[in-house]
Every structure is written in structure tokens, then in C-alpha cells.
């Protein structure tokens, strides 16, 4: 909401400039988001009086005008506006002025005639969007005077960012009330003087409410013989400063009073009513109504309607109808001032997807008891500014009177919550300034004004006191109690260890969107069932991720497209799957992706293309954080290359999958390189986390190492050989390292050579060569008999 600074100055006496006012209001919760001059395009623009208008000798559309700007100063101006006429006063932009569209004014030759300045439209000055002709100023405007001053545009708009609870501050008077509470001066309210004619309004209109829940109060006045025209400039200026476009005197007046009091009103062209009555009722499902923006809207029973008993004339509190709109031909007006229930307005707004200044105020909560006051204010302005005879009386139907809330406030409670030492009189002063009534006593009885529907409990009153008292005056206290030593969350601790392991191996942690593209998910697994968002922001962000893989592949793509050569990524994140219960299953997973080559960015290393074993190495790092071992077994999965796809098992539980992504699938992610991926269930890994281990005594006796190289058929798995070695050895074999794998000229084709370093150690003595030879021979025999291995020299 935007409000003019000058308007606020008129409503309450305060001595602060705009910036000071803005920061003071912000500190009491009436946040000012920005402060801006009403018009910035009015430098070097003055009031010009048109003395003569002559046709241009060479250009039929143009006219040459002699314009007076002050006594004895005249200027020739070429003008093409249709409404230019002798005697008219209009804004004249002088040399140096800059118009809204950036045009800099200077003396120019217009087809043989020098134009020394430019007569401007409202649009050219940025005052409104009106570009129908040059702006016509009031006859009283002084020629040659600065336009800003002449138009009272020497003003500043305060742009408020108000929280939805503060319905009371959506008006100039509401803001003035807060200012008054800060500075101690009273709010000067406008008066409404009406000279009613003898005819009674009640005789010409009947009001009935079918839905008193949706509309607890409906009041109307009737005004006849109105002449619609432009509203006076002072009013247009106020509207302009508040971001509302001037339309005609009647609409401007209702808007003006809405800004002034915060109460939305509506004026109907009464002649268009089929019957002289107002009936407030719910719409029927499927009923169609054309609102004043010309759109046919299909309604349902959530929508409250104002009707004339035959057909709807407005959507209550949200928008008027096209056919009952006030136009230039309107003479008789039915003026509505009503109170609508906030939740009814909200449901109607949600159903229709229609927001308006009026709807916002009703939805946040208007004041049912300001209804006649706002109505009289509008009627008096219409009477004074648009002519018209106001019929006697208000037709006021108020079946369910809304009374102010009364509640008890314990001053001790205020100080207990805020840690302050405020006295009761200080609290009472604050409440009075906010127009709360207070009956003193040991506890205060507080009567909350009906324009504060948000204040219903003691704690709400405490907040009101706190915000005006000032949060900065509340003390700051550290550590009042409670235990300080708390234990770390085990999940977080373990995740930190896993991250540490992967980062140490050169992996970058990524964070990817949990909302994923169904097409990508289906590409990876056509059978995948996912949790679907009912109101997605787009069709490609619609499912909750069932896996981290699509997010990782997108991150790989992102990096490949930026020529990153070494791509090592991981993510620890939550995946969701439908559970058949109200909430889906959520589990954490850890996923890795590798693409490109490793160690390529340094002269001292040779870049090596990532292989499956790089991926496995990273998984081993995680495995070491647990007290269980990981086993890999081939598995078939359409997302992976069948030759490189493995199920990962930890103990007896399958914890995930790893391997090379199928190139056909990578293409769908725009990836041309090879990508290795692993995805593991973090929950199982977490459950297998090693407990704190006790220290193991360091061995006292030296180790002995023996290296052996054997040749076996290419199809023999390393794990089988290791198992054979293990089984043939005794407990003195403490470690077996796979030293080398060789295929090539030195061995027969179809064979491979594997070299192992065997590490022996005994807890109680130094092993002799003979001890070791004995074990070694047994191993070699076993390798020969089980795997047809031969020793390489």
C-alpha cells in the first residue's frame, strides 16, 4: 500500500521528515519498504497559459501556440494535441526538462517553425497513462509557476509492506494512528456534513441479507441527480500518490475514502437495477456474471453476491459488475457500505483468482462499525464534488451486531514475557493511543476496537504494547538456564564422516533439486512410482525424487558443458516414495557420480580415465566407516551398461547399485561422455556405523613381506584367489595387497598375471623364513590346484 506523506501530515502533527518517519514506522511493525517522490519528471516544467492558437503553415495536423509563462514572458510552441484551445492552462516543458520516456526538451525546428518548449499530456509527464491530449490544469493555476507546486506533486509516497494481520493499517487514518501513538498528537479525522433532502432512502430501496454469516452488515444510501465529471485535482493527486488511477469523480471518491478509512465502498448506477432492492445471497454453482473488467466469470456457492433481487450487480467485496458500473451517463447512485466475512471473501477470491484493493481489505478484516461513518463521508464528498441530492437516512441492515472484544490484561504478564519493568500507566497510555479502551484495576480490562480483528487474546495485547514500547528497549539476556551440554545428532555426525571421506578423495558435494522431471525419472526407470505434486510450477518439475541419480546426471551435464575435465560429485539427500499411507516414505541416500579423467590437471600425474574401480574405491571409503563389508554382484538394470552394473550388498541387506550408466540414457541427459554412478541407502549404512573402537595395541614384532606373481585364466576373479590365499594361510598372514594386474605380451593370451604382497606377522615372536615358506608353499599349492595358477618367475 502506498500513502502520500503530505496526507499523513494533514492527519496528524509530527515533525519528522520522510526518512525518519519511515524508519520509526518500520520499528513499530508498520514497515515502510520504500520512499519515492510522486513524480520525478517535472523538473523545468511550468504552468503555461495558451494565448493564441494558429494553424501551422506547412503541417496540417500541427498548431502554433503563443503560450504565456508569467507576466510578459511568452513563448512559441508547436503542438499537435486535439484539445489545445485558447485560454487553457497546460503543463509546459521548457528546455532541459526530461519527459517520462526520456525525451530531453530543447528548442527545435518543426517544419520551418521554431518550437521553444512542449505542451504535455499526463502520460508524457508520468502522472497517469492519459495520452488523449495535453493536460488541462485548473484555471486558478498561476502561469509560470512550477508545475510540481501547482499540482501539489511536491510530495512523497511511502510504500508500505504490511503483514497480513494488520488490517487496521491499510489506510491513511490507520497509519496516522500509529504515528499518533509514536508522537503523542491526536489524529485529526475528516468530518462529513450532508444536507439530506426530505425524500427517504428507505422508501426507494429495500435491503435484505440472505446470508448473515457472509454479510453481517449492509448499509446503503441513495443519491440522485449526480453529475459525473473529473474529481478535483487534490483528490487525483492523493490517488496518484497512492498508486491508484483517477477514473471519474464518483469512483475516485469511493477509492479516496477507502484509502482514507480503509473501508471499501461501492457505487452502483441505480438506474440499472431491475428492482429497487438489494439482496445479498450466495451464488449458485455455475452461475455466470460479467465483472466490470468485462470478463464473464463462472461462480460457485463460495461466492457471495450483491443482487437486485433479479440478477447480480456485484461480487460482494471483490468486484462490481459491468452493467451496474457508474459511467458518465449515471445520475442516480446506490452507495454501498458493508461488512463481509473475511473467510467468505477469501474463499471467493481463491475460487475466482481475483484480487482487488477492496478484496484485500475485506479479507484481512474490515471494521463492521465504521460502515455508516465511511458511508457518510462518501455521501458528503459526492454532494460537494459531484452535485447530487442525498436522500434522507441510511438503510442499515445489521442482523448480527459485532461487539468489541473485552479481555483481561495482567501487567505482570506483560513484564514476564518481555523481561521489562513497565508500569501499568505506561501500558495504558500505549493502549489509549491505539484507541483501545482500558478499565484499570489490578488487572486491566481491555476493550479492543473492532478495527483490530487480529487482537483477541492477552498475548496479542502484549504484542501491541511491545511494538509501541519499542523492541530496542527490551533487554538482551544470554543463558537463563537449561543444560548446555547436549549430544550431537548421530545421523549428522555420521553424514559428516561420510562427507569427510569423499572430500578427501576429491569429490565435490552437490545439492540438487528434490523436485524432478518425470521424463528424466521415467527414462532411468520406466516403472518408477513417484509422489506427484498436484500444483507444480511446471510440467518438468512435478515429481519428488525417487532417486538422486537424475539430479547428479544433470550436475554432470552442467559441468561437462563448462569443460570441467574431472567430475567427481556426491550428494547425501532424501528420496521419497509412495507408501500407501498418508505420508510417503522418506529415506536418505548417498550417491556418487564420476565422469572424465582423474589427476589430469597437474604435470606430475598422468590423467587416467575414470573406471569402475575409482567408483569402488570411493564406496570402500564409506564402507570403512561401518563394521560391515560390502559385496558386489552383477545385476541387470536398464539404466546401466549390462557389462558394468552391480548390486551392492552390505551384510545381508541390498543397499544400492553402482556401475556405468547406459550411453543411450546419457544421451537423454545430453551427456556424451561416460558416467559412473553409485547410489546407496544411507539408512542401512548409518545403522551399520562402527561403534567407537577401542585402541588396538601396536604389534611388537616385525612384519615380513613376500611378493608372489601368478598367472591364471582371465576369467578367474581376484576375490576367489584372495579367498584361496586366506584359507591356505594361518593367522600370521595379516594383510594381502593386490600389487599388480598384467595382461599382455609377457603372458599367454587368455591369461592374466596378478601379483600379491603378502604380509606376515606374529603377535608373540619374530617369524623365521622357514615359518613363512611353509605357509607360502601351502598357498601356492592351493592356488595351483583350485585355479590352475602358475607362479611367475
Amino acid at each position, binding site marked *: 500500500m502506498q500513502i502520500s506523506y503530505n496526507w499523513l501530515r494533514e492527519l496528524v502533527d509530527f515533525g519528522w521528515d520522510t526518512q525518519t518517519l519511515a524508519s520509526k514506522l518500520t520499528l513499530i511493525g508498520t*514497515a515502510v519498504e520504500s520512499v519515492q517522490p510522486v513524480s520525478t519528471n517535472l523538473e523545468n516544467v511550468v504552468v503555461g497559459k495558451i494565448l493564441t492558437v494558429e494553424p501551422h503553415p506547412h503541417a496540417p495536423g500541427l498548431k502554433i501556440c503563443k503560450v504565456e509563462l508569467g507576466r510578459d514572458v511568452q513563448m512559441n510552441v508547436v503542438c499537435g494535441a486535439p484539445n489545445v484551445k485558447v485560454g487553457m492552462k497546460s503543463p509546459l516543458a521548457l528546455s532541459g526538462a526530461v519527459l517520462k520516456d526520456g525525451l530531453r526538451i530543447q528548442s527545435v525546428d518543426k517544419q520551418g517553425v521554431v518550437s521553444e518548449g512542449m505542451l504535455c499530456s499526463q502520460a508524457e509527464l508520468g502522472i497517469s497513462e492519459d495520452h488523449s491530449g495535453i493536460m488541462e490544469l485548473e484555471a486558478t493555476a498561476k502561469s509560470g509557476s512550477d508545475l510540481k507546486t501547482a499540482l501539489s506533486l511536491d510530495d512523497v509516497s511511502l510504500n508500505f509492506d504490511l503483514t497480513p494481520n494488520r488490517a487496521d493499517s491499510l489506510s491513511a487514518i490507520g497509519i496516522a494512528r500509529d504515528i499518533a501513538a509514536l508522537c503523542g498528537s491526536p489524529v485529526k479525522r475528516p468530518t462529513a456534513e450532508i444536507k439530506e433532502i426530505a425524500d427517504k432512502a428507505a422508501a426507494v430501496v429495500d435491503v435484505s441479507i440472505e446470508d448473515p454469516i457472509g454479510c453481517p452488515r449492509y448499509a446503503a444510501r441513495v443519491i440522485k441527480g449526480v453529475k459525473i465529471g473529473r474529481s478535483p485535482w487534490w483528490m487525483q493527486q492523493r490517488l496518484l500518490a497512492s498508486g491508484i488511477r483517477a477514473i471519474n469523480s464518483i469512483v475516485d471518491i469511493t477509492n479516496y475514502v477507502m484509502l482514507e478509512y480503509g473501508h471499501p465502498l461501492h457505487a452502483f448506477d441505480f438506474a440499472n437495477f431491475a428492482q429497487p432492492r438489494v439482496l445479498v445471497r450466495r451464488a449458485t454453482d455455475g452461475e455466470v456474471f460479467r465483472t466490470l473488467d468485462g470478463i464473464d466469470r463462472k461462480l460457485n456457492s463460495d461466492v457471495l453476491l450483491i443482487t437486485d433481487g433479479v440478477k447480480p450487480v456485484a461480487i460482494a467485496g471483490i468486484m462490481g459488475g459491468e452493467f451496474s458500473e457508474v459511467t458518465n451517463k449515471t445520475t442516480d447512485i446506490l452507495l454501498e457500505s458493508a461488512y463481509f466475512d473475511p473467510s467468505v471473501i477469501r474463499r471467493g477470491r481463491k475460487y475466482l483468482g481475483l484480487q482487488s484493493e477492496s478484496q484485500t481489505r475485506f479479507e484481512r478484516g474490515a471494521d463492521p462499525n465504521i460502515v455508516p461513518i465511511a458511508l457518510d463521508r462518501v455521501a458528503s464528498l459526492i454532494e460537494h464534488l459531484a452535485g447530487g441530492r442525498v436522500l434522507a437516512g441510511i438503510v442499515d441492515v445489521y442482523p448480527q451486531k459485532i461487539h468489541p472484544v473485552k479481555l483481561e490484561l495482567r501487567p505482570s504478564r506483560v513484564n514476564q514475557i518481555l523481561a521489562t519493568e513497565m508500569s501499568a500507566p505506561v501500558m495504558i497510555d500505549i493502549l489509549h493511543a491505539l484507541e483501545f479502551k482500558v478499565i484499570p484495576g489490578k488487572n486491566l480490562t481491555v476493550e479492543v476496537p473492532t478495527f483490530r480483528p487480529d487482537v483477541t487474546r492477552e498475548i496479542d495485547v502484549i504484542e501491541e504494547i511491545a511494538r509501541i514500547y519499542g523492541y530496542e528497549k527490551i533487554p538482551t539476556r544470554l543463558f537463563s538456564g537449561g543444560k548446555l551440554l547436549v549430544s550431537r545428532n548421530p*545421523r549428522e555426525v555420521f553424514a559428516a564422516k561420510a562427507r569427510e571421506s569423499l572430500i578427501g578423495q576429491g569429490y565435490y558435494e552437490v545439492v540438487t533439486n528434490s523436485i524432478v522431471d518425470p521424463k528424466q525419472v521415467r527414462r532411468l526407470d520406466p516403472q518408477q512410482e513417484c509422489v506427484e505434486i498436484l500444483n507444480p510450477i511446471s510440467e518438468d518439475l512435478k515429481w519428488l525424487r525417487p532417486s538422486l541419480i537424475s539430479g547428479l546426471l544433470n550436475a554432470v551435464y552442467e559441468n561437462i558443458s563448462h569443460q570441467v575435465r574431472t567430475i567427481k560429485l556426491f550428494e547425501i539427500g532424501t528420496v521419497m516414495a509412495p507408501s500407501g499411507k498418508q505420508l510417503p516414505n522418506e529415506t536418505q541416500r548417498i550417491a556418487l557420480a564420476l565422469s572424465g579423467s582423474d589427476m589430469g590437471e597437474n604435470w606430475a600425474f598422468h590423467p587416467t580415465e575414470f573406471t569402475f574401480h575409482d567408483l569402488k574405491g570411493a564406496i570402500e571409503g564409506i564402507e570403512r566407516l561401518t563394521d560391515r563389508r560390502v559385496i558386489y554382484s552383477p545385476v541387470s538394470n536398464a539404466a546401466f551398461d549390462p557389462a558394468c552394473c552391480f548390486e551392492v550388498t552390505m551384510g545381508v541387506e541390498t543397499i544400492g547399485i553402482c556401475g556405468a550408466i547406459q550411453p543411450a540414457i546419457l544421451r537423454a541427459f545430453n551427456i556424451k561422455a561416460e558416467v559412473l554412478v553409485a547410489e546407496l541407502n544411507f539408512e542401512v549404512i548409518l545403522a551399520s556405523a562402527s561403534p567407537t573402537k577401542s585402541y588396538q595395541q601396536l604389534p611388537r614384532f616385525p612384519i615380513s613381506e613376500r611378493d608372489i606373481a601368478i598367472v591364471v585364466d582371465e576369467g578367474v576373479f581376484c576375490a576367489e584367489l584372495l579367498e584361496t590365499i586366506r584359507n591356505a594361510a594361518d593367522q600370521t598372514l595379516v594383510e594381502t595387497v593386490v600389487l599388480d594386474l598384467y595382461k599382455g605380451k609377457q603372458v599367454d593370451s587368455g591369461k592374466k598375471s596378478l601379483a600379491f604382497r603378502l604380509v606376515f606377522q606374529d603377535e608373540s615372536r619374530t617369524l623365521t623364513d622357514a615359518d613363512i615358506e611353509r605357509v607360502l608353499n601351502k598357498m601356492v599349492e592351493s592356488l595351483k590346484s583350485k585355479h590352475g595358477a602358475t607362479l611367475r618367475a
Partner: protein
Amino acid sequence: MSDDRIAQIVTEAKAEIAQCNSADQIESLRVKYLGRKSAVVAVLRGLKDLDGEQRKVAGQQANEAKEQIELLLADHLQSIGGAKSNQSAGLDYTLPGRRYPEGKLHPITRTLNEIIDIFYGMGFEVALGPEVETEYYNFGALNFPPDHPARDMQDTFYVGKDVLLRTHTSPVQIREFEKRKPPVRIIAPGRSYRQEAISARSYCVFYQLEGFYVDHNVTFADLKGVLVAFAQTYFGDDVKLRFRPSFFPFTEPSAEVDIYCFLCGGKGCRLCKHEGWLEILGCGMIDPNVFKSVNYDPEVYSGYAFGMGIERIAMLKYRIDDIRLFFDNDIRFLRQF
């Protein structure tokens, strides 16, 4: 072997060492005097055949001699300019080091860790909750009445009837209150969601950290205290904070907390949108209605709650101007943290 003999060996060694003028010569003398076949080592080896006192004396003499000769060898090597290490041939010490590239934590994790550590030090435990929540935990129990404009403050993704993607980590408050009795002092970090178009300023997924404390006599002053302590630890001791009234359905009174813009010192710049202040978090005293929904007596207990956006904090700290960078996962970005 007699004392004299050992002394004589040392003297001989000394004389010979003095004649050396190369590292190789010194090395061969080391073999001669201290090698496996040297006289000194022979003495040490023969100790096991000697009796108690004799063994002690002989052993001491031989060891002393050995140390003396070692010292002589080392001193002389030093005096003739030392030996060459394996590193010396054609060394280009300007070549880059042989570094094993490390990875990096994502800046969000890093920021979260730093913040969690600060609150951990102030006695807050970490609790986590589901990302897909019921309306009750996300709104109802947190005093968002149905049909209330407050629900529009947070655009919500729905995945079913009354089931949604949590719009904040505040539901963890309710889940923890249901499990525990005061005192409760917890922080709840995690992903949250808002149904907003993706732009430089907003992303549909974000991280939030919620903190809350309930006990006897917890006051607004305690809330200010804990947040001032946090801000000073995280942003530096000279940070200035501003608490201004605001509105959240689950706190009353509520406040928005701003820090003095550290880039311009409050003068106004692009970072603070010329306001001099940067909004960092929202907070307040837990609303009595929240306590009622978990059967805590608001007359007996009071508490505060606060919530901050982690991306927002990281963006301020590292001056990041586009929130999408966090989710693009471009290594050129990630490696800067």
C-alpha cells in the same frame, strides 16, 4: 678388548676421517668403523658372553665409542659441504607442487555446519523431520487458522489431500514438543519448499534452520540474547542488530531481525537495497495456541522460536547474487568455498 684398544680405534677413526674430502670416502669409513664387521660392533656382539659387571662396563665403552665416531663422521661430512640428496639433479623448484586435489563441501552444508556449531555451543540439540508433511504439522498446529490470509504468506506445494511439502522446518517444533517435556532447546535444519517460480532471488527448494527453546520463564530478552550471540559469532563482534515487529502465526510477539549492512556500513548500497539493513531471520515468542496444540500449559511455560534461510545467510556472507548457483552445482562455483 681393553679400554685402550677402544680409545685407539676412536683416535684412528678421528685421524682417518679428518683426511676425507668426499661423502663417498666418509661413507666407506662408516662401514669400516661402524659396519657389521667393525671392531666396535664386534665388541657389542660379544657382550652376551661376558659377566654382569664386565658386560656393563664394556657395553658402555663400546656404545660411547660408537656415538663418538658417528658424531665425527657427521661433523666432517658437514664441514666438507655435506652430501647430495636425491632431490638435487636439475631441480625446477618453480614447477607446481604435486597436489592430490581435494573435494569441497557444498557451501550450503558448510554454512549449515558453521551455524549448527554455534548453536550447539549454546546448548541446542539437532532434530530432523520429514520433508513431506501434513497440513496439521505445517499449518494447523502452528496456529495458521484455515481460511486465514497467513496461509498465503507461504505458497505451498500439495501432493495429496492435506499433504504438502513443508514450507518451513517449523513442523519439527510440533513433532519434538509431542515427544518431549520442557526444557526443550532444539535446532531443526532441513529442506523446505515454496511454490514459487525459479529466479535469481527464489528457488522452489531452500534450506531453513529453525530454533526453539521452551522452559519456565523464557522471555523476549532471552530471544534477543541468543540471536545477538549468534550474529556476533557468525558475522563478527561489531555486527549491529535491529529487531522490528512483524507477524508470524506461530509467534506472538513476532519480530524480524536485520543486521547493519556490512558492505556499506549502513550508508545504503546494492546489497541492502539502499536501506542500510539486511533482513536475516524471523523470530518471536511461541504463540500460546501452539502450546495448546501440544498440551503444554502456556501459563507454566514460555518459549521462543526463530527461523533463518541458509541460502540467504550464505548469500550475505559470500556476496552471492543468484540463488540458482547453489543448485547448478557448477564445480567452478563449488571450488570457491
